[in-house]
């Protein structure tokens, strides 16, 4: 356990450090700015509808995926490419623990950054309109979304050096486009995992944005099961890669 905590702590420092944090920090400022500009003089139900129409989409379709992609893809991938992965793998530690720590760090970092943006936007909503209901559900669902995306992007970053490009195509072509084409495609969409948790917790959310979920049912329980499966699969796949793949790429 000491090893796992140490790896997570160092990985968190590594993932959040450097210039990346400035880039993702700017992305995280989008939700409060959008909230500020769209709420205007709306109050109560009107303000909540505006928040659901504009801000929620920005948080779940842009901020969480982009932040998770930038931070998560580097968690294992950067270590593999700069040679520091050898420092981790040459230890008497289960490969699952290494991937788990990386995933934990990436999800936590994503939540810290995207969650800050979500928190600010909820505070702006509450401060301007007196509507505070979304605050806690939003943070919970951002945490769920962070785990979902980090699970995928940590592994993507390990597999390919072009993870950011591929991830952006996934986010903006599949998630924001193709996955809306048919209800059945919604089940293989990551942003709907967090969104389903949110709509399951906030009154009127299903009315305002329920159609975006497609065939996905609103509710926290289903979302938790999905991220548990995703995280477990990511750990198993990542550990298998660590056992079978070459772990250094530099000559």
């Amino acid at each position: 356990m000491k090893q796992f905590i140490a790896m997570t702590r160092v990985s968190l420092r590594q993932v959040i450090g450097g210039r990346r944090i400035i880039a993702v920090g700017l992305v995280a400022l989008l939700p409060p700015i959008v909230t500020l500009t769209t709420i205007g003089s709306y109050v109560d139900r009107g303000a909540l509808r505006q928040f659901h129409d504009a801000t929620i989409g920005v948080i779940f379709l842009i901020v969480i995926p982009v932040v998770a992609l930038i931070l998560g893809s580097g968690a294992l991938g950067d270590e593999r490419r700069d040679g520091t992965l050898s420092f981790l793998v040459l230890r008497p530690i289960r490969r699952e623990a290494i991937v788990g720590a990386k995933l934990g760090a990436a999800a936590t970092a994503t939540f810290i950054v995207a969650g800050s943006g979500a928190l600010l936007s909820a505070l702006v909503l509450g401060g301007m309109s007196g509507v505070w209901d979304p605050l806690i559900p939003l943070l919970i669902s951002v945490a769920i979304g962070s785990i979902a995306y980090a699970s995928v992007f940590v592994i993507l970053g390990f597999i390919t050096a072009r993870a950011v490009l591929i991830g952006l195509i996934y986010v903006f072509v599949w998630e924001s486009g193709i996955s809306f084409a048919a209800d059945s495609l919604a089940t293989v969409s990551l942003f709907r995992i967090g969104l389903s948790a949110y709509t399951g917790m906030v009154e009127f959310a299903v009315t305002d944005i329920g159609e975006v979920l497609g065939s996905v049912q609103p509710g926290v329980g289903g979302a938790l099961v999905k991220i548990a499966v995703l995280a477990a699969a990511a750990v198993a796949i990542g550990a298998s890669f660590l056992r079978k793949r070459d772990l250094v790429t530099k000559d």
Partner: protein
Amino acid sequence: MTSASGPAWAADATVETRSLSRWFGQKVAVSDVTCAFGPGVTGLLGPNGAGKTTLLRLICGLISPSDGELTVLGSDPRKNPKVYASLALVPEEDAVYGFQTAREFAAYAATLAGTDPAKADEAIAMVRLEDAADRPISGYSKGMRQRAKVAAALVSDPRILVLDEPLNGTDPIQRAHLIDTFRRLGDAGHTVIVSSHVLAEVERMADRVLAMVDGKLAAAGNIASIREAMSDIPYRLRVEAGNARMLGAALLERHDVSGVEIDGDTLRVDTTDLGDLGRAIPTVARRLDARITLVEPEDESLESVFRYLVRRR
């Protein structure tokens, strides 16, 4: 293929390879290598691109073999991570976290190895990095980074220590100290495998040498036998000195010098006995009042030596 009982084999082997090969596409990096490493310091010698780093990565389980077998303490390290409780690597590349201090880095290595992180202080002292131990590694020189990596490797007192060009970037004093440290570990019964492309470095560290070129084992044995194997072919030594023309003329009179090229202050001296000539040059230079600024074997020459050894096998 080398037999599992020849000079490439070691008594009480902790690391064994049998017909080990690794290729990357069309390029064969390690070819049919059968050898063993046991307690003491073993030098892995060869020119750049000989396959030394690939062999060390295979031994550490960082890459998988294309063919052949490898065991470390009886296990395949890629299948049994417990082996890593007894194995540590100092890689050639800068595998460090720049945001950590050397003390944090060594303590982190200790924690991951299941050792007391307080042992980091001892490891830092062993590599004489105390003065800079609390500064971020990102501000370190190449030599300091090397020592930070060595400290992180030594912190768990590994039974097998794998060092890939560990003296790169170190100054002569640091180099002497690290060589002494590796020798003491070898004398204490640790298996120390150290790669280098510089024969003189390996000679100071290792009693036993495996020479590689083009991915193959070119020669194996103690330093004397390697030297003997190399004795009938010319080496090229690069000497930078004042009064180079007179120094060149004086060296050419020696029986072990077969040719001298002079280019400004640089001499390229062909010899069949690198050791004797290396020892004689300072004496000759002193007599002629020629100030020497550099004496080193030329890589190209060393490579030709290895190629010659491969052809002879």
